[in-house]
């Protein structure tokens, strides 16, 4: 099994979720994060004190999938989250060794 972690622009969340549902993904976990990267932030000025805000709001999606689904998932996310502008985000894939569904104790593929 793999866990796919994607950092995307916040307003793309619904589209990505819909795309994943379409390829049969039943579950995922979302976190509000701040991203730092090539995309430039903005400047905030409060009574003459200027702050360069370089961290931008992003959404992190984590989805655990069986190995054979990984490529479909990557494609789906890429397609749904792309705007073509800097800051669209990244996808990182790593292995997981075990998965458990807490409710039932089912493991691995059954747990997803």
């Amino acid at each position, binding site marked *: 099994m793999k866990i796919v972690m994607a950092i995307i622009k916040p307003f793309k969340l619904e589209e990505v979720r819909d795309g994943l549902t379409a390829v049969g993904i039943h579950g995922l976990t979302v976190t509000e994060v701040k991203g730092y990267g090539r995309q430039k932030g903005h400047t*905030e*000025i*409060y*009574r*003459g*004190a200027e*702050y360069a*805000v370089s961290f931008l709001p992003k959404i992190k999606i984590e989805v655990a999938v069986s190995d054979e689904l990984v490529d479909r998932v990557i494609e789906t996310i890429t397609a749904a989250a792309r705007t073509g502008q800097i800051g669209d985000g990244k996808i990182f894939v790593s292995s997981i060794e075990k998965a458990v569904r807490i409710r039932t104790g089912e493991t691995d593929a059954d747990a997803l």
Partner: protein
Amino acid sequence: MVFRTSLRAGSIGLAVAALSTGAALAQVPATAAAAVPNKGDTAWMLVSTLLVLFMTLPGLALFYGGLTRSKNMLSVMSQITATAAVMCIVWVVYGYSLAFTGGGALTSFVGSFSKAFLAGVTNETTSDTFTKGVVIPEYVFICFQMTFAMITPALIVGGFVERMKFSALLLFVLLWATIVYFPMAHMVWFSEGYLFTLGALDFAGGTVVHINAGIAALVGALVIGKRIGYGRELMSPHSLTMTFIGTAVLWVGWFGFNAGSNLEATGGAALAMINTFTATAAAALGWLFIEWIVKGKPSLLGMLSGIVAGLVAVTPAAGLVGPMGAIVLGSIAGVVCFFFCTTVKNALGYDDSLDVFGVHGVGGIIGSIGTGIFVAPALGGIGVADYAMGAQVWKQFVAVVIAVAWSGIGSFVLFKIIDAVIGLRVTSDQEREGLDIAEHGERAYNI
């Protein structure tokens, strides 16, 4: 009626009221013939008192608290609430007496303890207004002035938020009220006080409240020092929503401050009211547009700062200038305070964290001098007897200098003493953690 004779009366066409500074005459219990308060005046003064309380709680606390980081929000609310409560008690115990009784040999500077614990005050005693024969219940005058005494030290808090010890603040407030505020109020508002007899104009407390507090805050910021990370770390306001609510409440409440200082529900109060509208709106727009031009964006915090600057500037002028003069005065305050808070302060590099000096000090000085100018009937003001612009501006200038000196020196000495005795500042670990947890064991938000 001793005090009355000290009024330069007789100027019929020109408002007598304008001559006296602030609430000056009001301290005299009416004697003989027992003038009876008009219920309309009493109603208005009851309301005005509440409006000034409303400025402090929650107004000022939200205005200030919203500008701090969320880890210090609760400490700002605590400091302002405690300051208000302490001043309320001190005022009835001896503050009112020190400010509004004759002080014998020292009466140019301070009163006596003859009304300590409100000795002799009852339901029936009254205070004079600026109109001969018109009185209000003394209790309502005491309450109204109490709210001024509550808000003034609370204003100072903005100079050194996010780092001052709560205990040190309480001690400072107590001493500062005694050494600086009560004498200053006596000098300006009591008929035997030095500035009152000088003839400096101050309709609603520009010197006593704003210059006084602005200077104390500046001195505090300098003595206590900068916040850790000042100038390097992001210290953006944690909630401009709260600052907005606070500002709106300040504006609404300030009408009690300014129009209430008329002490009667008359056209004079209405004049103070319209000026408190126009000067404020002008200052808000002044700051808005100058910032838009200079920095490229029109900011909410700019408008809100402009609102406060305008309110401060119009305070001494409220019942004395015309609505168009108020617009000019307000615009100037908006623009000058903008440059002060954004350029001058950065250049000098001190950490007057919430710009108490930049807004209240500078705005108060502009208002005080401006009152001497725009009171001129030629400029739409209501005029004062024997008015000459140069002479009047000079008197205003003297009042400003005295306020700056009295508050500056008094505050400096007090800060130094308290620092030596119990320390002014929390530890750097506590400052990092935030005063909310470190000093009060609570957090403002648990969402």
